[in-house]
């Protein structure tokens, strides 16, 4: 049963009773929250996701709630918690849905050490995974959103999960997080996107999320073989330049972009090395999304 088959009232009821359980890629996530806006966020962006039954194993028990009764009404705030642990300081109440996305990123990045977790967007076409590692502001999510709007399968806009067992990339297709100018850039790029409400004045500025395609969600447990490793950099008015990068340098850059390279130790080095062996490596400068999408379509052909 998909979340979209539930009414708003039913979603709010499930959230209130700690029984909203969603299958997100290979993870089962339970979310509880008394905040109605969270239900709206989920219905808008997670409609294609399966609701899992009460007996299913849950990877992450999460909740979004006010830190105290006072903070529900006076300068209202929200806390994200995982198994009762509160990893972040509270945020303004209006940022609850964005906090869910950030909190879930934290859960996955910190508790999924059967994967090498790379801070990278990843999309797939013709059975080839294109991995875009990048620091905030590099334009990886914008590029990822443009490719996802152009028929590429979304595996993740934020975290590439590389299995240490088989070297394949496992999806966790969730809403694509966009910030500030990228919101308008993607709205102008495609008229077919569904975007959730934009949350303003967060620590990252204005933040909005694009709904992943139903196909990407349906293929949420189907891994992809890594093929290209591309380090993007958005540079205003730049040409579209794809520059080959030596594999050794690519390895160091990937290691810097991993959440758990040091935790995995020698296994992390082996996983990164195998990824580098399997991938063509590039640096990529761009300012025009249309040109970028055309170039990658050609590369995946």
């Amino acid at each position, binding site marked *: 049963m998909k979340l979209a088959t539930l009414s708003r009232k039913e979603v709010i009821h499930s959230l209130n009773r700690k029984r909203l359980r969603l299958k997100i890629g290979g993870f089962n996530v339970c979310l509880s929250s008394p905040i109605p806006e969270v239900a709206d966020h989920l219905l808008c962006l997670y409609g294609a996701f399966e609701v899992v039954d009460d007996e299913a194993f849950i990877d992450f028990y999460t909740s979004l709630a006010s830190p105290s009764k006072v903070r529900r009404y006076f300068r209202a705030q929200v806390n994200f918690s995982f198994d009762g642990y509160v990893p972040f300081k509270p945020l303004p109440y209006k940022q609850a849905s964005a906090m869910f996305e950030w909190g879930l990123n934290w859960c996955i990045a910190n508790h999924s050490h059967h994967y090498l977790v790379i801070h990278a967007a990843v999309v797939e076409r013709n059975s080839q995974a294109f991995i875009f590692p990048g620091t905030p502001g590099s334009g990886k999510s914008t590029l990822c959103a443009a490719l996802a709007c152009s028929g590429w399968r979304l595996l993740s806009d934020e975290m590439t999960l590389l299995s240490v067992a088989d070297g394949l990339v496992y999806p966790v297709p969730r809403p694509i997080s966009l910030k500030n100018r990228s919101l308008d850039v993607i709205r102008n790029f495609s008229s077919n996107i569904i975007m959730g409400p934009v949350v303003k004045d967060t620590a990252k500025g204005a933040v909005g999320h694009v709904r992943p395609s139903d196909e990407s969600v349906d293929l949420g447990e189907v891994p992809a073989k890594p093929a290209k490793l591309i380090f993007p950099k958005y540079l205003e008015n730049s040409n579209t330049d794809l520059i080959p990068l*030596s594999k050794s340098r690519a390895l160091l850059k990937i290691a810097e972009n991993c959440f758990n390279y040091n935790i995995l130790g020698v296994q992390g*080095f082996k996983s990164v*090395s195998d990824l580098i062996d399997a991938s063509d490596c590039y640096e990529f400068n761009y300012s025009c999304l249309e040109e970028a999408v055309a170039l990658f379509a050609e590369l995946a052909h």
Partner: protein
Amino acid sequence: MLENSVIGLPKAAVIRCRFWDDECVIYNQFTGETHLVEGMGAEIFKLISEKSATRTQLLQTIHSVFELETGFDIEDFLDNLILQYQKLGLLDVMENSPA
């Protein structure tokens, strides 16, 4: 300085090397550090990752791979390189005992 030395990877299996073209990436399991090694350094590790080598063998390999400028003191350069890698725990320098 290292005339009678044999150079090899540390006996405890703490070093992992991967080679691409003329570069090498080395992972030191003890320190958790990852090193990029290029040029002559990569040639040294290519050789010793197969089998420990004497300083003379390393010099022969370098002479066969690189065109060295006249007057360049390769022996001094090689010794310094080896000592730097030794400090980082990436290789061991052993005395070449007579058979």
